[in-house]
C-alpha cells in the first residue's frame, strides 16, 4: 500500500515536472507517450519515426524560436568510433527544427580535445552547417554565464554556455557510451559540455554534480539518445573500433532520467550495467529531475 502510494507520488512528481517544462517553454505538448524507443533503422529514419510519435518537431519548436542542438562532440574522433554523436542525426534534427519554423539553430560543445579538431573529425560541424545551423566555439570562459542551482546539493552554481541561456529551447543529443568514471555517459552527463568548469564536477562528487546540473531551470525540451553506434568499453573516448557495437537504437524523452534509464537498460544487454551503479540516475530522481521507474511511463517501442 505504502509502496503503491509512493509510486503514485513519483508519477505525480514527474507529471508536475513535465508541466513545469511546458510552462517554461510556453506551450502545451500534446504527447501520446512519455518515451519513444526505436530499433533497427538508420539514425535519420529512427528519428523521423520517433518524433512522429511525439506529434512532430512542431510540438517542441515554434515559429521564430532560437534553438540549440547540443550533441556530444567531445573527442577528436570520426563517427565510426562512436565517441561523438552521429552527424546525420544532428543534421536531421536541425532540418526539422527549421521546418518547424525555427529562426536560428545553434550547435556547440565544450570539447575535451582541441575543439577545432573535434568539430571537424566528428563530421558534426560540416553536417550542421550544411543543414543551416550556426556552429559556435565553447573553449573560452567568456562564452559562459553563471547560473544558480538552488535545488542542487553539491553544484550550487555553474557557468553555462550563453547559447543555451539565450535560446528559446534546446535539444540534448548525446551518444550512448560507457564511462570510466561516471559509468555511463548519456543525456545527463552530456550537460558537462554546456558548462565551463568540468574539473569542479570531478572534484566535488561527480555523480552528484551530474544530477545537480540537471536541476537547471532550463532543461532540454527533448533528449534524443543516439544509440546507433554505441561505445561498450574504454569510454568515453574509446581506443579502437573494437569498443563499438552497431546497436541501431534511438531513445527520446522529455524526462531526462527516464531516457537515460532506458538507454542504460539497453546498454545492459551488451555489457552488464546495473542501474544502481550509474549513481547519477538515482541522485537525479532524488532531486525530482525525473524518474527511473520506467513501468510508470507510457513507452512506445518501435522496431524497424
Amino acid at each position, binding site marked *: 500500500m505504502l509502496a503503491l502510494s509512493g509510486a503514485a507520488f513519483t508519477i505525480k512528481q514527474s507529471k508536475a515536472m513535465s508541466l513545469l517544462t511546458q510552462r517554461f517553454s510556453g506551450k502545451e505538448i500534446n504527447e501520446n507517450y512519455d518515451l519513444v524507443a526505436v530499433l533497427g533503422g538508420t539514425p535519420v529514419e529512427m528519428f523521423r519515426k520517433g518524433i512522429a510519435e511525439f506529434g512532430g518537431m512542431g510540438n517542441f519548436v515554434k515559429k521564430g524560436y532560437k534553438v540549440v542542438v547540443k550533441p556530444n562532440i567531445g573527442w577528436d574522433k570520426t563517427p565510426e568510433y562512436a565517441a561523438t554523436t552521429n552527424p546525420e542525426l544532428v543534421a536531421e534534427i536541425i532540418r526539422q527544427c527549421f521546418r518547424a519554423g525555427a529562426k536560428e539553430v545553434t550547435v556547440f560543445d565544450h570539447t575535451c580535445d582541441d575543439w577545432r579538431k573535434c568539430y571537424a573529425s566528428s563530421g558534426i560541424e560540416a553536417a550542421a552547417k550544411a543543414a543551416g545551423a550556426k556552429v559556435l566555439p565553447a573553449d573560452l570562459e567568456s562564452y559562459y554565464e553563471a547560473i544558480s542551482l538552488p535545488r542542487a546539493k553539491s553544484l550550487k552554481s555553474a557557468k553555462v554556455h550563453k547559447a543555451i541561456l539565450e535560446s528559446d529551447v534546446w535539444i540534448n543529443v548525446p551518444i550512448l557510451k560507457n564511462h570510466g568514471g561516471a*559509468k555511463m555517459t548519456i543525456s545527463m552527463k552530456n550537460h558537462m559540455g554546456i558548462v565551463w568548469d568540468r574539473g569542479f564536477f570531478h572534484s566535488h562528487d561527480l555523480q552528484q554534480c551530474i544530477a545537480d546540473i540537471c536541476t537547471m531551470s532550463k532543461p532540454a525540451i527533448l533528449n534524443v539518445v543516439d544509440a546507433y553506434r554505441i561505445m561498450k568499453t574504454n569510454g568515453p573516448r574509446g581506443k579502437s573500433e*573494437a569498443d563499438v557495437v552497431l546497436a541501431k537504437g534511438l531513445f527520446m524523452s522529455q524526462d531526462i532520467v527516464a531516457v537515460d534509464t532506458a538507454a542504460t537498460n539497453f546498454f545492459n544487454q551488451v555489457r552488464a550495467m546495473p542501474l544502481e551503479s550509474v*549513481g547519477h540516475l538515482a541522485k537525479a530522481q532524488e532531486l525530482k529531475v525525473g524518474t527511473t521507474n520506467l513501468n510508470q511511463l507510457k513507452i512506445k517501442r518501435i522496431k524497424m
Partner: protein
Amino acid sequence: MLKKLRVIISLLFFIPITFYFLDFRGVLPQQFHWLAKIQLVPALLSLNLIILLVIVGITLFFGRIYCSSVCPLGIFQDIVSWVSKHFNKKKKFKFSSAKNILRWSILGISIITFFLGFSFLTGFFDPYSIYGRMATHLFKPVYMEGNNLLAGIFNAAGFHSLYKVQIFMLSISTFLIAMAMMLIIGYLAWKNGRLYCNTICPVGTVLGFLSKYSLFKIRFDQEQCNSCGLCSMKCKSSCIDAKNKSIDYSRCVDCFNCIEACNRNGLKFSPNFSTQRKKVENESAMDIDENKRRFLSTLAVSSLAVAALPQEGIKIKNFHKVKRETPISPPGSKSAENLMSACTSCHLCVSKCPSQIIRPSLLEYGLGGIMQPILSFEKGFCNYDCTVCTEVCPSGALMNLTKEEKHKNQMGQVHFIMEDCIVYKDGTSCGACSEHCPTQAVSMVPYKNELTIPHTDTSICVGCGACEYACPAFPNKAIYVEGLKVHQQATIKKEKTNQKINIEDFGF
C-alpha cells in the same frame, strides 16, 4: 631594376614565412614549412644537402642573395631601415671598416659549442631562429589580439567565421630575450642598416666569406665613376668605399641600392670578366688570408675556453619548476640530448602546436638547452593523432613521425599517486584522467562499492599528458607524466576483433 627585383623576391619570401608563423587558423597549408626548411642553419643541421648546395651555389654565383632575400631577419632589418628613412630624410650611411675579429669569433664559438653537443649559441645567433622567436613571442600575440578584436565585432554582428583564441605568455624569459633581440637588432637597423648581419651573424660571416669568390659582383666602372659617394650613402652594409672605388664583398648583401643611386651608371652587377680590379682583388686576397688566420686562432682559443668549462657548469641539474624529474621533450625528438644537438630554438613548433603545449624551456634541459622546446601540460595535452611539430621542424631536431609512429612513440610515462586521487580521498567517482587517455594506459578498475579507480599500464603510455591535464585533484595532481631521457616505444596491444553483437531487444 635589380633593386626592384630584389624587393619583390624578398617580400615573396618574407610575407609568407611571417604569416606562416602567425597563422594559428591554418589558412596556409601545412606544407609551407618549406619556407623554414630552406633557411641555411636548419638545412645545415638537418644535413639537407640539396638546400645547402643551392645556397652555396647561389652565393658563389651571385653573392649573398640568401641574406638579401631569403633570411627573414635580414628583410626585417631592411624594412626597419626603410621606415627609418621616412623619419629622417637626410639619412646617410657611410663606409666603415669590417669588424672581422668579432665576426669570426662569434662564428667560431657557435661552431665549437655546437660540436660540444649543444646548439644554444648556434640558435641564439642564427638569424632565421631569431626571427622565428620574434614572430612567435612578439608578433603572434599581437596578431591573435587583433583576431580577437575582429572576432568580437564579427560575432556581435552575428557572423561566426572568426573565433576568439586564448592568448597567454608561453615563457617570460624567452619573451624577454626575443624582445631584447628585436629592440637591439631593430635599433641597429634603424641607425646602421645591416650591422647585425655584418658584425655578429654567423651565417652572414660564412656567406660573406663565400661571396668574395662569387662570379657576379657589383663592380665600379672606373671610367664612369667620379667618386661622388652617392652609392656609399645608400649602402646599408656600409661596405662601399667610394673614394677608393672598392667594395668589401664580404659585407655586400646584393641589395642593389647603390646601382639604383648612381647617376652615372658607374656601378654594374657583372661577372668576373673585367681585369681592371686586379689591385683590389689582391687586397681582398690578403684580407682572406688574414681572416683565415684570425678564424683559426679564435677557433683554437675559444675551443680551449669551452673545453675548460666544467661539464657540470653547462648542465645544471635539479632545477625543476614541477615535480617532474625529467623534462618531456617533444615528439620526434628521440631524446633531450638529440634535441639539443640540432634545435636552434626557432620556435616554429611552439607556434604551430595546435594545443599550445610546446613551450620554450628555462633550465629544464640545463644551460645548453635554454629556449629549446619542452612540453607543458598546464593548458592542454598532446593530441594523439597530431604530428604537426614533427612535420614543421626545419632542423631535424624533431624527426618527422607518421601518425602510426607517433602512436608508438613514448616520450614519457604515467605516474599515479593514489593518496592524492579524488576517488581515494573523497570516495566519489572521477575518472577524468582515464576518459582523456587515448591508449587506456590509464583505465578505471573496480574499487570500493560502485567506484572505479585509475590503474596505469606504462607499457602502452605515450606520455601525452592528457591525464595530467585533466586531473582535478588539488593541490597535488594525482597523476602526471614523468619524462624519459630517451624516448621509448610504447607497445600496441592487438585489439580483439569485434565479435558481432546483435541486439534484438530494448532491454526494458
